């Protein structure tokens, strides 16, 4: 850790400063361990450029979307892989997840109404995923084309990318 006696903003030396990554894409098979690997790869690309809170939100959002595909998408074993595209823009992350699974049921794309706090024997053991996605994603958009689902969203950054 560099010492910082003046309380001046810490700055990386120019030689260590990295430009924001170009838009990139990660491909993965439809299983939970592949999701873990893909999340690690994606986070490693963006973590130096966005606030830690936003990195945590991105990881959660993508985990929920990808795990839904793994668990409910009925992706055929020989199908083309799932792809995640990530574009780090000045004030937001723009992402698109594309998968060859069955069409997404339309009702999942409508944000659920707020529910009363859960309690007692009525506690749900599942169904947390889509409410989280609707809570965290902005401009959630769904298209079905050529046998593939395309789900895109934005994640506004709580401040600009750290290299600006």
């Amino acid at each position, binding site marked *: 850790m560099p010492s910082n006696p003046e309380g001046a903003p810490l700055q990386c030396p120019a030689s260590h400063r990295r430009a924001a990554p170009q838009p990139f894409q990660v491909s993965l098979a439809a299983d*939970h*361990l592949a*999701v*873990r690997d893909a999340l690690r790869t994606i986070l490693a690309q963006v973590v130096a450029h966005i606030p830690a*809170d936003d990195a*945590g*939100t991105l*990881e*959660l959002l993508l*985990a*929920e979307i990808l*795990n839904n595909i*793994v*668990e409910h998408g009925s992706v055929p074993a020989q199908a083309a892989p799932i792809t995640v595209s990530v574009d780090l823009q000045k004030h937001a992350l723009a992402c698109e997840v594309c998968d060859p699974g069955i069409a997404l049921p339309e009702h999942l794309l409508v944000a659920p109404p707020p529910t009363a*706090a*859960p*309690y007692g*024997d009525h*506690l*749900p*053991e*599942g169904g*947390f*995923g889509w*409410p*989280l996605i609707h*809570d*965290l994603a902005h401009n959630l958009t769904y298209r079905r084309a050529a046998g593939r689902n395309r789900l895109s969203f934005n994640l506004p950054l709580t401040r600009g990318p750290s290299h600006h």
Partner: protein
Amino acid sequence: MDLKTESHENTLWVHLDEPRLDAAVALRFKDNMRDICLPHYHRIMLDMSAVTFLDSSGLGALVAVMKSLSKDQTLELAAPSFNVSKVLRLTRMDTVFTIHATLADARAAGGFDAVQS
């Protein structure tokens, strides 16, 4: 799935030494917890300080473990990280679980320090 346990009278401490409680391990976590949360432990303290990532499947497993306990058993969460706390808050499960912000808080609440000194 690495669960280390220590017990004292009616309290069972479970240290979850995994960085992720997610869809890849949720089922194994649930099964292992059901095996170790024996009926004579009235208080299950789950040390989550090592967990940096919780998803909806991991959360579902936590709820399932809690629901599998008997009426006189409780599951309490100790030292959840920032990201774990965020998931608990967004899903309103922070109102369902007893949550101790730090391990010291949990030990104090469990009467652990008093017994040991």
